[in-house]
């Protein structure tokens, strides 16, 4: 039976990542049920069908209620087993659980950010102010930024994510890609905007044509949320 301590995911993501990761994962909701700490699946900020026609309700339901939910369930299971192993001083077991914690923990962190990065098309507005200025300074224009982001993200081999992140040291914006559910924080970047290119994110609608999905998704990017994250990251 687990000890009931809340295990901060940042522990598992590598020393360099700790400040960024700690800030990130501390924002995740958890509850204690019967004395066992457990991360929670967040609600979407909108209905599952709200991003149509860009992302279908069918995809959003599966993505949120099946895929993201499974990351949360499996994360909690792995953390419980980890707590047991730790209290039994079973180092082999602790080591063997790392990949499940990294994968499911990363999946939870990434999707938690993703849902807030999107909004219904009618509510979406392009970036402005400091964020727009920073994008233009780095890439020349918003269009050049989105084209570069889409090209790099389309080129992800297999499953992964495209990210706009803030380099904590240089305070510069950067585009980066990550494989599988590897958290961006492990690259020393604070995640601002993530686009999921696992096939489950688009396949039912866009099939093999990932570039079409990447072209369309800009219509539902919540730049206000990205700007909030940018402001918080620079602070």
């Amino acid at each position, binding site marked *: 039976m687990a000890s009931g301590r809340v295990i901060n995911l940042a522990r598992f993501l590598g020393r360099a990542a700790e400040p960024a990761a700690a800030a990130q994962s501390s924002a995740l909701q958890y509850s204690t049920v019967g004395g066992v700490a457990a991360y929670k699946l967040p609600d979407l900020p909108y209905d599952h069908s709200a991003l149509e026609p860009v992302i279908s309700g069918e995809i959003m339901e*599966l993505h949120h209620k*099946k*895929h993201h939910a*499974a990351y949360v369930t499996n994360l909690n299971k792995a953390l419980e087993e980890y707590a047991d192993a730790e209290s039994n001083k079973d180092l082999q077991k602790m080591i063997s659980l790392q*990949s499940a914690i990294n*994968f499911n923990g990363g999946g939870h962190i990434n999707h938690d950010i993703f849902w807030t990065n999107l909004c219904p098309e009618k509510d979406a507005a392009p970036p402005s102010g400091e964020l727009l200025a920073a994008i233009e300074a780095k890439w020349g224009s918003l269009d050049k930024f989105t084209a570069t982001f889409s090209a790099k993200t389309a080129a992800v*081999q*297999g*499953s*992964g994510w495209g990210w706009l992140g803030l380099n904590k040291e240089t305070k510069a914006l950067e585009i980066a890609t990550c*494989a*599988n*559910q590897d958290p961006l924080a492990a690259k020393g970047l604070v995640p601002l905007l993530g686009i999921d290119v*696992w*096939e*489950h994110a688009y*396949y*039912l609608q866009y*099939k*093999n044509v990932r570039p079409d999905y990447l072209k369309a998704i800009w219509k539902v990017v919540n730049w206000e949320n990205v700007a909030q994250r940018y402001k918080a990251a620079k602070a």
Partner: protein
Amino acid sequence: MPFTLPPLPYAMDALEPHMSKRTLEFHYGKHHQAYLDNMNKQIAGSELEAKTLEGVVLSSWNNGSPTPVFNNAAQVWNHTFFWENMKPNGGGAPSGKLADAINASFGSLDEFKAQFKNAGATQFGSGWAWLVADKAGKLTVEKTPNAVTPLVEGKTPILTMDVWEHAYYLDVQNRRPDYMNTFVEKLIDWEAVAKRFEAATA
């Protein structure tokens, strides 16, 4: 000479209801075809064109620092291998030397199936589950990410299962375990696997 795709060993609807026609139309007609077309574009005019497909795979693996060609070439190879180890009314059980080898290496067919499905389940992200044979007939289950194939380690695969989401998403969506059960119970062409086992241990 550009490479071409071998035709599917069966009609697009021949694996129904276990793997839909729609899945094969996309998986073979779009994904597999695109790997081939992209590989041909990448190797046009280079000495890779004169190699066998396996030769292109091994050469582009580049001892663990794969070139951009690898992702396409290996996926061309992997998918052709994948189609060849399925058949309509597949599943059942292996017999003869292959069955003996499975029992010797895993204890039982059920234990092999459990390990094979576990490999597919724990290949986080995209990839493949494999059954590999060595010259002495010892069998092992392996898993690889993305386009990687046991070929690059000089190993001889005799069975593979694609666990990229595009392999099953149209049919069973997120339910990878359901797909893997169906593959193991209803799709494997054990005769094809036995032939590969024979060739591997010859």
